[in-house]
């Protein structure tokens, strides 16, 4: 570390700004890499990136590091999340046979299961909040 470069504040500020996205992406990739290694070592079947997400969440909650780099890379990636599904979605072309044979069970499943799941989630949450309110009043 020589001082002649550090003395140039303009250089440092511009460089900091320039590196923020790269640093953010690098952090995300490092967590994914750790997640992938953990997925190989752990006995439970979890996708590596999910373990990476969990570890990054823990780090953010425990250490409260400077968020700027991670936040910028994450926001950028997540705001284009839809684009990232496209190549996999085109893979549907490989499953045309399956879809023409099974379109009826698939359609019924998607419609019914989606509605049942949404209703169940909402009703369970309303029920438990009501239960908690009652319980809370008794002990107030």
């Amino acid at each position, binding site marked *: 570390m020589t001082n002649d470069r550090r003395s140039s504040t303009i250089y440092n500020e511009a460089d900091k700004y320039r590196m923020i996205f790269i640093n953010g992406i690098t952090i995300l990739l490092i967590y994914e890499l750790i997640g992938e290694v953990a997925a190989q070592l752990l006995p439970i079947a979890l996708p590596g990136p999910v373990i990476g997400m969990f570890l990054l969440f823990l780090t953010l909650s425990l250490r409260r590091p400077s968020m700027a780099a991670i936040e910028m890379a994450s926001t950028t990636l997540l705001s284009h999340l839809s684009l990232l599904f496209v190549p996999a979605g*085109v893979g549907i*072309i490989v499953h045309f046979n399956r879809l023409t044979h099974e379109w009826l069970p698939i359609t019924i499943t998607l419609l019914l299961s989606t509605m049942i799941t949404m209703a169940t989630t909402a009703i369970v949450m309303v029920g438990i909040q009501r239960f908690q309110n009652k319980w809370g009043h008794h002990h107030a």
Partner: protein
Amino acid sequence: MLDPDLAKIWVYLATSPLLGLTMTLVAYSLAHRLYVYTNYHPALNPVVTAVGCLVLCLIVTDTSYAAYFEGGKFIHFLLGPATVALAVPLHQQFAKLRRIWLPVLIALIAGVTTGALTSVAIAQLFGASYLTQLSLAPKSVTAPVAMGISEQIGGLPSLTAALVVTTGIIGALGGTQLLSLLRINDDSIRGIAMGLTAHGIGTARAFQISSEMGAFAGLAMALSALITAVMLPGLLRLIGLLV
């Protein structure tokens, strides 16, 4: 039919990643423009339009999916870091959760269980094959995680991706009416139900209604992805679908 020189160029391009990658970005960019133009109509979700256009292109030009994916894989790769990135909205909204963490947690576990079991049961009832049942099980989870889970349990990740997107559109289109019908007016509860069921597409829809509903939907999306990844293999083993 084609000029021999043009045919030579086509053969060269069809095997290079450049064409697949560029086609993907062009299709998505046009699809997104259409989505904005129709004031974000859920049925015109850019993923659906872009995938439709690309599938049509591949069929018309008689290009294989493998050749297309040579270029598509560069975009596909980013699903990994995008999954890790979900930790950021989860962290940002975690403070909101403190007050109501218990009902949220129980509702999410109930929702994840219901989603997986009803999809497998209904698919089985109407005669779907084993592979389709497995590919349907993680249909409510945000696509990058759902594809990872699908691969892990032996489903077809690319079929799961298409099913996930369709689930999201159904949830976003019918969800608000269903919740109103059930007289659920609390935006935090509506958001939780929407995000759990219809992941990112539902979250985008929730943000159109209110920022509170959107924030809770995003939270439910990230948490239910984690819960499903942990619970689903065991759940499927319990009902005898996996050994």
